[in-house]
């Protein structure tokens, strides 16, 4: 089928906005042609997601100047200049997929179950386990309150104790939980635990819920097998959850492939980049309600690249903006603001954005405040990601003498910023930042990359659509991703090590494909942007001073290549672990202004 495709329409129904993109085949491959958007219409008074889809497509129609709709339907296949050959969609509207997961031991099967649900694109409302500190009746009360879209029940290794797994199933049966959407259907429950317990679980739960049994997600302590549980979650998401959300039944009949949860689609793209480029990748998608972080890092235990996704359900830039303030504290936000702000006024501004989530910053000061909040939302989400993206806890490890010396343990975070090759940002506040340098500095400040790290953003926030497209037309998705979606910003070079302000810490030699080489001696505390001619790659030779590491070991030089990027190469010797800002307000503001000037961040000083 994919050989005949001339045009593709892809939509993403977000919690605030529905985005549509039109892709067309040209002589040299597929290109993004135009993009439209409209408010999502899952809520009253519309309560029909297809209204927002049609509005967004109508905008694409107007901008492209060719008909795509046939009344209230998307016209497929393309006939002459009208319609498209393929229509696909993702969705996170209506709160996305909300799940409760359970395992026997919180840090083992509980954590594996959480990773399976998150990897499938869900928001995890609660993780229940026998050792989670709650008494049985407290668990039952919680299960009754939650009203999730779906439950993932895991626990036990294959061939292990059946009784403890049965106990969790009995608690679930006693709670008799109800689904969030549509009172008239049974709650989907996926059992992915000890296979020997499947029959017992079925006899406890079978008549009360829509039970699906899949292979164990932790068949042995040493192995995770998340694929079957993830697939079952995707299938049930379509069959049960989406079918009960307003308008989705109709939307499902329009799409060529099943509608995918937005984060699941973004995760696919991140995994593909990491596999293709054979490097560690960290991706972030910051939305209005939630922030998703995706990572692919090598398992130091030798298990190869490991994909992880976390969702911070209440960290975002509109619906959840107030929660960023609640979690980061007002001081956490204010430390990024280069001008004095009245606390009462700032609190009111943040709340006003929450209650009117579709407004946009008009004044420069307002933009700076939003970008300060974004840094904290990203930082907090990344902290949560590091805590969950860990090696399997509880496994027996074959250790050699070097492991013993390094005291490495099972359950250590897989996130190694020094090994990170590419950091990709997505979501309105990053993709639509008026200057690309703003997106770059927000990500550097929030993630504090170490050594040499390339940075990129999704140009107009279309990774979800390309993710779902890649499941049906990989070539088109890959071509549009490379040419029209991914905007290379440049790279950050950050030496690691203790230093004193003003003392030398590294020298960097940059050799762009086009243009003359340049050499920079960098002192500790310095923050510089080196613009490079756009296009092609830049060769970097970094020589750290004794005691500093840029990725090859303390004092050892590193040679590498990065994409040139539209912003340039940032030499960031501000320090890490910890990265600190001056306590004194005037000194802090002066520092922030100095860094903003270095990046030409804003059209005037704020």
């Amino acid at each position, binding site marked *: 089928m994919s050989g005949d495709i001339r045009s593709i329409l892809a939509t993403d129904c977000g*919690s605030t906005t529905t985005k549509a993109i039109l892709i067309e085949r040209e002589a040299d491959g597929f290109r993004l042609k135009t993009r439209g958007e*409209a408010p999502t219409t*899952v*809520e*009253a*008074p519309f309560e029909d997601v297809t209204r927002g889809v049609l509005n967004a497509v109508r*905008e694409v129609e107007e901008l492209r100047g060719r008909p795509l709709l046939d009344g209230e339907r998307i016209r497929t296949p393309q006939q002459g200049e009208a319609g498209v050959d393929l229509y696909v969609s993702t969705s996170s509207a*209506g*709160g996305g997929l909300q799940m409760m997961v359970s395992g026997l031991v919180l840090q083992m099967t509980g954590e594996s179950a959480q990773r399976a649900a998150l990897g499938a694109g869900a928001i995890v409302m609660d993780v229940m386990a026998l050792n989670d500190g709650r008494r*049985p*009746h407290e668990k*039952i*009360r919680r299960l009754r309150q939650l009203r999730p879209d779906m439950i993932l029940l895991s626990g036990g290794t294959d061939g292990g104790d*059946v*009784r*403890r797994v*049965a*106990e969790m199933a*009995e*608690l679930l049966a*006693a*709670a008799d939980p109800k689904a969030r959407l549509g009172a008239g259907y049974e709650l989907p429950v996926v059992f992915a635990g000890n296979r020997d317990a499947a029959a*017992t679980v079925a006899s*406890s739960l079978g008549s009360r819920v829509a039970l699906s049994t899949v292979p164990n997600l932790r068949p042995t302590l040493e192995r995770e097998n998340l694929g079957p549980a993830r697939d079952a979650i995707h299938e049930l998401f379509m069959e049960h959850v989406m079918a009960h959300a307003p308008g989705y039944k109709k939307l499902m009949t329009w799409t060529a492939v099943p509608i995918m949860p937005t984060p699941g689609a973004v995760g696919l793209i991140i995994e593909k980049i990491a596999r293709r480029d054979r490097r560690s990748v960290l991706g972030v998608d910051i939305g209005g*309600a939630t922030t998703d972080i995706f990572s692919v890092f090598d398992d130091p235990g030798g298990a190869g690249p490991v994909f992880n996704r976390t969702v911070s359900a*209440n960290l975002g830039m509109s*619906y*959840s903006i*107030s*929660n960023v303030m*609640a*979690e980061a504290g007002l001081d956490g936000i204010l430390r990024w603001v280069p001008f004095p702000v009245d*606390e*009462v*006024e700032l*609190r*009111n*501004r*943040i*709340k*006003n*954005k*929450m*209650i*009117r*989530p*579709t*407004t*946009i*910053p*008009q*004044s*420069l*000061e*307002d*933009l700076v405040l939003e970008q300060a909040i974004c840094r904290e939302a990203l930082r907090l989400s990344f902290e949560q990601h590091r805590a969950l993206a860990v090696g399997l806890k509880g496994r027996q490890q074959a250790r050699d003498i070097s492991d013993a010396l390094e005291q490495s343990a099972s359950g250590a975070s897989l996130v190694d910023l020094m090994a990170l090759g590419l950091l990709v940002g997505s979501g309105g506040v990053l993709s*639509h930042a*008026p*200057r690309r340098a703003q997106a770059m500095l927000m990500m550097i400040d929030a993630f504090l990359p170490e050594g040499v790290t390339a940075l990129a953003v999704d140009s107009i926030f279309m990774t979800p659509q390309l993710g779902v497209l890649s499941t049906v037309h990989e070539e088109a998705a890959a071509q549009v991703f490379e040419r029209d979606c991914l905007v290379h910003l440049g790279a950050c070079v950050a030496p690691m090590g203790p230093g004193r302000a003003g003392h030398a810490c590294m020298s960097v030699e940059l050799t762009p494909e086009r243009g003359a080489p340049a050499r920079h001696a960098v002192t500790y505390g310095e923050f510089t942007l080196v613009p490079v001619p756009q296009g092609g790659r830049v060769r970097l030779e970094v020589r750290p001073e004794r005691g500093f590491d840029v990725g090859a070991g303390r004092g050892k030089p590193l040679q590498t290549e990065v994409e040139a990027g539209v912003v340039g190469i940032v030499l960031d010797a501000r320090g890490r672990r910890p990265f600190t800002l001056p306590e004194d307000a005037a000194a802090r503001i002066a520092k922030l202004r100095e860094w903003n000037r270095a990046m030409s961040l804003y*059209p005037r000083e704020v």
Partner: protein
Amino acid sequence: MSHSYTPGLRVTAQARVRRERRLPLRGEVLLERGARVTPETVVARTELPGNVQTVNLAAGLGVEPARAAEALLVPVGSAVRKGDGIARASTMFGLVQNRVEAPADGVIESLSPVTGQLILREPPIPVEVNAYVAGTVAEVLPGEGVVVETEGAFLQGIFGVGGETSGPIACAVAGPDAELRTPDLRAEHRGCVVVGGAWVSHDTLMQAREFGVRAVVVGGFDDADLRRLLGRDLGVAITGSEEIGLTLVITEGFGRIPMAARTWDLLSERQGETASVSGATQIRAGVQRPEILVPRAGGAPAPSESAEDGGLDIGSPVRVIRAPHFGRLGKVCELPAALQPLETEALARVLVVEFADGSGRATVPRANVERLAP
């Protein structure tokens, strides 16, 4: 491109409003279609299943789970009182007698032969649902509740805290731009829905609670005061279940913002009439705004509450809902089609608004205005 603005909140003198009054679980509906109700009328009743207690019988008796059933003194399905013996077994060749007692009043629901766990269900918890607003039962939802229909003034606020309540409307200040101060509150406000103007402080709100005021409706409120009221920073805007002693409805936003003239006029016209007020707000997934309903039959023909807002046109009255002109009112005087650069350098669809106070014009992103009812 008329969809890139925030639809204004509904503020109308006469609307036909339907409110579903549903039980959390199936139960008994007490009224029939056509019945007249007041806010306090109980329309449906049910019993929530009682809390569950788990008793590890096998461990308590020291027997294998599969044999726990043999030790039961009363069969599954029996009602028991707290302290009643429910199982007994002897171990150590009959030397040790183990006895397990019921930890609470309830019914023995099940006993698992796999885990030896006994589930004891405590007595059911009665739940009643009232009509919330005066009107007529328009529909009976068998086993679930009723739909109450009423006609009258319908006003949505932008944010609220506290649950459903009702009481006569009392305007306590001189006008929509006045702040509600403690001296404005009087003993006769007890049981009332008190309308302030542009702002109320936390201290005055607490004073209103002392006076027995049921709800306060005001233009603006400070987030710093909200924090004091709730005892925490409100992270996610899902409200309505706070137990703060009264209900607060903010009609315009956070900060000192004069109440929209239309809202003020409507509430002051209806002084003394009974209003039903809910502070429940949900800003994501299932948007819900706080509301004030003032039933009055026999008004002008009432449009349904879900009547859609029209688009923005030249002359449409709007309010700016974001800095730097936050809260200001005016009329649209230009709607340029092309994207225009803002001070932030972002390109956005804009409009030009002429301010109502005669202070001139300003260009504002369309996303940053809400259309007001003409």
